[in-house]
């Protein structure tokens, strides 16, 4: 009973914060409400016997990624005029309507394909660090290595993209080496 009550509170706050994320005009408020939404999602993850993923959600998402977002928002220091959204015309309203139709469609699909299924009994230690680590380094070994490559490529890409005067610097570098 308590689990159900916690679920409803968490999902209500989560959806409300998500709505605030896409509707508020100030990017800093958007980022802060997204942090609230992610924290509530971490609570939902913990309810689903995924304690380790919940901890990662707080540490990586609400911690690292959102701090990066806030850092960039403050670095750019946008004025209200630059962050303004422009007027809401018919086409944008239509887009929102299409999203709503898509949402209903998605839910009907899920309900039809899943209706009435309930949980099995969770295996003891489901979601524990040992079990996840073992799976990560045996069956998902190749994916794990590919992910590390992806992160390295992302770091190199970020350095390349944010370099000052990219075209001229690259040309100079190429000219010097050849």
């Amino acid at each position: 009973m308590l689990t159900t009550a916690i679920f409803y509170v968490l999902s209500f706050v989560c959806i409300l914060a998500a709505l605030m994320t896409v509707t508020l005009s100030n990017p800093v408020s958007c980022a802060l409400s997204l942090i609230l939404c992610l924290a509530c999602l971490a609570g939902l993850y913990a309810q689903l016997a995924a304690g380790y993923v919940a901890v990662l959600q707080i540490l990586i998402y609400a911690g690292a990624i959102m701090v990066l977002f806030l850092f960039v928002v403050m670095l750019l220091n946008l004025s209200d005029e630059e962050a303004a959204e422009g007027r809401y015309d018919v086409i944008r309203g239509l887009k929102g309507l299409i999203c709503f139709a898509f949402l209903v469609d998605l839910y009907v699909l899920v309900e039809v394909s899943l209706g009435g299924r309930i949980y099995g009994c969770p295996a003891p230690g489901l979601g524990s660090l040992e079990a996840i680590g073992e799976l990560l380094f045996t069956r998902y070994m190749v994916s794990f290595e590919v992910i590390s490559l992806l992160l390295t490529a992302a770091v190199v890409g970020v350095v390349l993209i944010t370099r000052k005067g990219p075209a001229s610097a690259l040309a100079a570098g190429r000219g010097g080496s050849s």
Partner: protein
Amino acid sequence: MPAPLEYLAVSCILFGIGIAGVLTRRNLLVILMSIELMLNSANLAFLTFSRLHGQLHGQVIAIFVMTVAAAEAAIGLAIVVALFRQTGSVRIDEATRLRG
């Protein structure tokens, strides 16, 4: 314990809100945040199915999705900074230099 359908309903709603954000907002930073929202709703679905079947594979995939989201956020924010240097704004309707 709430039924799996209720968790999946939350997941669907979050995904719909994320798509609405991507399609209707003009601020590139908010669009990136909406993409993060959509990735998280996918994670919630993965974890629900992991719990439903009593298997750990969904949780491992969720960790991978989180890593990809971190890389995506880093690249996306780098593009935002580069765009701001070029045009002095982060509104995507002003980034029209590649339009023919």
